[in-house]
């Protein structure tokens, strides 16, 4: 008798399957991948001012949209699709096969990574070509960008899997998850300049990871002279790192302990 395929091989195969499934759902492709670019086109066309010497609103906005792209492709996509899969009975069927749970999660991570990379490339491409967004030139900034991307997407993915236990039904999931994301985007300084928000909004946002991701991305895409205009008069990247790690631990804990394969 042959051996049962190992968890990583199966996880990679599941990733391929997830991407194929995703690509065939036209609505989700448009919503997840094109929507941020559409927002960039709208906001970039409306707000043409510079908000600080050498910083256009588009530059500020692209940093925020990349951060919230991590939330869209990870947290939002998973917290909506996993309850649907559970409602359909697809998760229970998987549970009845020898496929290990870890393979399912590896598949989701692959899907999130691929859609995240596509989204970021599209945002940067459009920003570069149409809105004069400038790419960082220092190696330090790209190092920061890399760890923000890795940690941010891990955090977003694990929290999406964890949050998938919250919606009572697959159909209602979008109604629960989308408003949370949109409100967080407003509070965290994605659509609006963070320091211009009322302090109570800033304080609420500071609890959640999106505000820190956004601020971290600004440290990558905005000149260091802008750091003085942040709330703490600095980029606070150390703090961002700590807070993202904390949320990652929370996300992994609930994903592993509380994940539900069955409706009831």
């Amino acid at each position, binding site marked *: *008798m042959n051996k049962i*395929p190992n968890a990583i091989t199966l996880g990679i195969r599941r990733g391929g399957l997830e991407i194929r499934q995703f690509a065939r759902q036209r609505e989700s492709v448009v919503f997840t991948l094109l929507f941020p670019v559409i927002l960039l086109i709208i906001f970039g066309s409306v707000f043409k001012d510079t908000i600080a010497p050498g910083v256009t609103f588009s530059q500020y906005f692209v940093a925020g949209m990349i951060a919230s792209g991590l939330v869209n492709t990870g947290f939002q996509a998973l917290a909506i699709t996993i309850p649907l899969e559970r409602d*359909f009975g*697809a998760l*229970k*069927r998987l549970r*009845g*096969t*020898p496929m290990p749970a870890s393979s399912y999660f590896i598949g989701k991570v692959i899907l999130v990574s691929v859609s995240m990379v596509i989204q970021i490339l599209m945002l940067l491409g459009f920003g570069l070509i149409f809105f004069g967004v400038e790419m960082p030139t220092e190696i330090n900034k790209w190092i920061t960008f890399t760890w923000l991307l890795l940690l941010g997407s891990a955090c977003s993915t694990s929290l999406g899997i964890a949050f998938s236990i919250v919606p009572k039904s697959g159909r209602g999931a979008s109604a629960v998850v989308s408003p949370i994301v949109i409100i967080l985007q407003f509070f965290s300084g994605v659509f609006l300049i963070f320091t211009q928000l009322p302090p109570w909004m800033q304080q609420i946002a500071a609890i959640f990871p999106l505000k820190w991701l956004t601020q971290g991305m600004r440290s990558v895409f905005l000149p260091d002279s802008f750091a003085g205009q942040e709330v703490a008069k600095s980029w606070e990247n150390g703090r961002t790192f700590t807070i993202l790690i904390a949320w990652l631990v929370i996300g992994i804990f609930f994903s592993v302990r509380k994940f539900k394969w069955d409706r009831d």
Partner: protein
Amino acid sequence: MNAIEVTGLRKSYGQVHAVRGIDLSIATGEIFALLGPNGAGKTTTVEILEGFRRRDSGDVQVLGFDPHNEGRAGREWRNRIGIVLQSTSDSGDLTVFETIDHFSGYYSNPRNVAEVINSVGLDEKAGSLIRKLSGGQRRRLDVALGIIGNPELLFLDEPTTGFDPEARRSFWALIEKLRGNGTTILLTTHYLDEAEALADRVGVINNGQIIEISTPAELGGRSTAQALVTWRDGDAMKSEATDNPTSLVKKLTAQFDGEIPELTVTRPSLEDIYLTMIGISRE
């Protein structure tokens, strides 16, 4: 060794006693049908055996393992089992072939994908997206996914609900083929004719207890039950229940001197017996 061995199985949900002390042995290679009305405890029992639910008490061995321990982590155990759940669907953005092919990768010794597609009669739909399948075709896909791993033990929870009669017949033929391979099958069904056509033995379950386990022919004393002979005598239909229908027919033959008008000899159907057992009278 028996494929399934259950003693004293109990399960409650709050105040509701879903399963109240079930004993069950299913031999390797046997096809066993669990019959019972909705809410009788069929699905709870089967889901405990499949490792989806925890039991309150009792002993359960499935292929020599306790599903409570093996169900969560035991890939080797899952590798030997096929499960067709009662209701499953998915977003339907994959084709029949892609889905079955992918699932075949989960097992150490899967069956040939094209053969499985053929055996459930989905040849013409192999390249179709699942969302374009009819209800019956989707159900056949469910069955295909249950058998792709070449299981020693197959659970079928109401597999033919929603099938048209023709699809049901071809499904039965498929199960006969699996019987030929030596697969042990535990089937739950609402359809008495299905149990009669497929099962070596049937167990009737009601209110969380097994009322009787027997062959379909002998259930509820069916094989020894009195036969009912009816015929027309002038304007009136007459009938008589008897242990000796042959001699009654002989007597009638002499009386009518040839053909007996509208003669029928019937024994209680499995359905009659079943309905009596679960306490529903026909008329």
